């Protein structure tokens, strides 16, 4: 049963907090428009993936513990990122093997945590949004959302309801963009080769706007597109769905 006014805790993610608050506000708007009451616990930082993926299990566990504590008591916890949502949903519980009490709390959190777009589409059964966009967009399927959480059709369905928007499919949309968290700075040349191919596909799509559900991937792709002098802009899919396009696109200046 979905409560009539679901009490949602927003896990902002470290990248949205630091780089692009407008994505957080777009998420809040979408959730509020769908009838949710949104709270943003102050005691959150990052989901812990940088430590987790570098093999630092001890720090990961402490960061996860803090997240589990900060997000108690909500009906749902919603995350505008597939990879951070998957971290909480798929990886937190196993961090606490040997701590049964914490583990069951982590399982409770995992159970009620959702990536933003799939939460709107699958849980709240939102079928359309009240937004407009005049132009052609393409969509990159970020890896964790796609493969760990099954986010694929949901963003496409909701985008189809945006007035004026035309979606063209990206060649190799399901192939990684080469970001990989710390991977992109640990193996910059390899990462660059991967994002270069991605950028070629994006430019080849003839879209004027690239969308995705993860800010990390978006910053990687936007940074590459800009360096190549490409005209394609990049935004988080929530910005378009919420109709919040007043902020310049990712990596774009005020004058653009």
């Amino acid at each position, binding site marked *: 049963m979905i409560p009539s006014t679901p009490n949602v805790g927003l896990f*902002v993610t*470290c990248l*949205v*907090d*630091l*780089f*692009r*608050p*407008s994505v*957080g*506000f777009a998420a809040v708007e979408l959730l509020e428009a769908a009838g949710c009451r949104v709270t*943003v616990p*102050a005691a*959150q*930082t990052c989901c*812990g993936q*940088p*430590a987790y*993926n*570098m*093999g*630092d*299990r001890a*720090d990961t566990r402490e*960061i996860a513990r*803090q997240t589990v504590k*900060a997000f108690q008591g909500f009906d749902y916890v919603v995350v505008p990122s597939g990879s951070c949502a998957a971290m909480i949903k798929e990886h937190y519980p196993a961090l606490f093997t040997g701590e049964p009490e914490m583990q069951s709390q982590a399982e409770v959190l995992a159970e009620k945590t959702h990536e933003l777009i799939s939460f709107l589409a699958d849980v709240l059964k939102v079928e359309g949004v009240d937004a407009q966009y005049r132009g052609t967009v393409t969509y990159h399927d970020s*890896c*964790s959302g796609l*493969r*760990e959480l099954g986010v694929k059709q949901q963003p496409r369905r909701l985008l189809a309801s945006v007035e004026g928007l035309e979606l063209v499919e990206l060649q190799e949309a*399901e*192939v*990684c963009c080469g*970001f*990989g*968290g*710390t*991977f992109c*700075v*640990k*193996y*910059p040349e*390899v990462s*660059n080769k*991967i994002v270069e*191919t991605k950028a070629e596909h994006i430019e080849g799509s003839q879209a004027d706007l690239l969308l995705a559900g993860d800010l990390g991937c978006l910053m*990687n792709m*936007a940074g*590459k597109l*800009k*360096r190549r002098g490409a005209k394609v802009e990049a935004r988080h899919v929530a910005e378009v769905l919420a109709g*919040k396009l*007043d*902020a310049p696109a*990712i*990596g774009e*200046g*005020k004058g*653009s």
Partner: protein
Amino acid sequence: MDSTAHAFKDNAHKALGDDQLQEALGNLRHGFTQRRAQARDQLPEFDALRDAARDIKNHTLAHLDLYLERYESKVSEQGGKVHWCATAEDARRTILDICRSVDAKLVTKGKSMVAEEIGLNDYLEANGVTPAETDLGEYIIQLRNEPPSHIIAPAVHLTKAQVEADFRKNHSELPPERSLVEPEALVQEARTMLRQKYLDADVGITGANFLIAETGSSIIVTNEGNGDLTQCLPKVHIVIASLEKVVPTLEDVSIILRVLARSGTGQEFTAYTTFSTGPKREGDLDGPDEYHVVLLDNGRSAMLGSEYQDVLRCIRCGACMNHCPVYHAVGGHAYGWVYPGPIGAVLTPSLIGVEEAGHLPNASTFCGRCEAVCPMRIPLPKMMRHWREKEFERNLTPTAARSGLKLWAFFAKRPALYAMLNRFNARLLRALGGRKGSLRSLPLASGWTDHRDFPAPQGKSFQELWAKRQNGSGATPRTPGA
């Protein structure tokens, strides 16, 4: 085989600058992935078969001792012999002893990754026995004196033009004006060169895709039929296999075979699936007089019961590397040892040590595509992460990365300080980005800015703006940066 896995970064750098390699990789990236997707779509029970295949191997690994003993006794019953080899050295020695016992000068070889693992060719050659590779891909790389770059397509790093040039150089006795434009012509030429070798060889060595405990048979799958000639014509057949290749029954193997070729090449079945069970029996028209199985451990039994046990389910189909963005970027040689791609990233540290191969489990974006296509459902990213954890525990992680991470974690574990830091960084990076909205260079982040611009923050942290909204009118604030 000597490893250059420690030099992954340098290897990758070279690979990225190699135009011919990049051309060859482009073909692989599309061909294999599309064919696998088609094969999967045409078989509705494909995913159910993957589950069944995984379960068969899990069961086998849980009773590995039992099945290996049963396998050995079946091989003996049929007049063959199993040689248990704990190390690569044991296996090399055993094979050389068998070759010497029949005074072998020339051995033909089918494709075997285990033979690569133990560095068999160099060893035989150094001891006066000439190995002749009969698989087309292996034949090509033997001419070039290179290791394979892929576990099912050893010469996939080469373009057709390179192969043609190698053939012209090495087959100088053939008329120079012959045409080698069609791939068929290359295959035909290699066949011609090999024909006499099949007949002259004293020993034939093949790998094995499976060993069947129920019958004592070994199975190889090929597309050229070279394996059949390699094992039937010489007097002695040596099968070289690692011990996790065993499966209980013919029934089991028939299930796993249904996912093997579909995952690797996208074929429903390989052109040849060859079963061999012991030496020639009375009344058989052909077959070897002696049948030996060299059963290699080389670190695998130590993986049983460890967090890496699942990787022993691997059937070497190649799907994980065919779908890996890192493999697509740098190819197989960059990984520096026998097994490239995601399977190599997990297996290589187990077999030659994480000190040598520490880069491999790190050189992954964790995109998860390997796990998504692995027919045996091996959780490859999870195992790479286990290796990263081992490296971190043992202080093998590079110092700069480690201290950076520790500093970051210090803040990430203290939300109030973290919020202050983000407020500060948001402003600082914003100011550095100026009106352009992105930075072209950033100290300490050259790995990023050498190749791409760095998008600047909007100027204030979300938490800061949110607190304002909560304290203020309740309306969403004007979007920052607008």
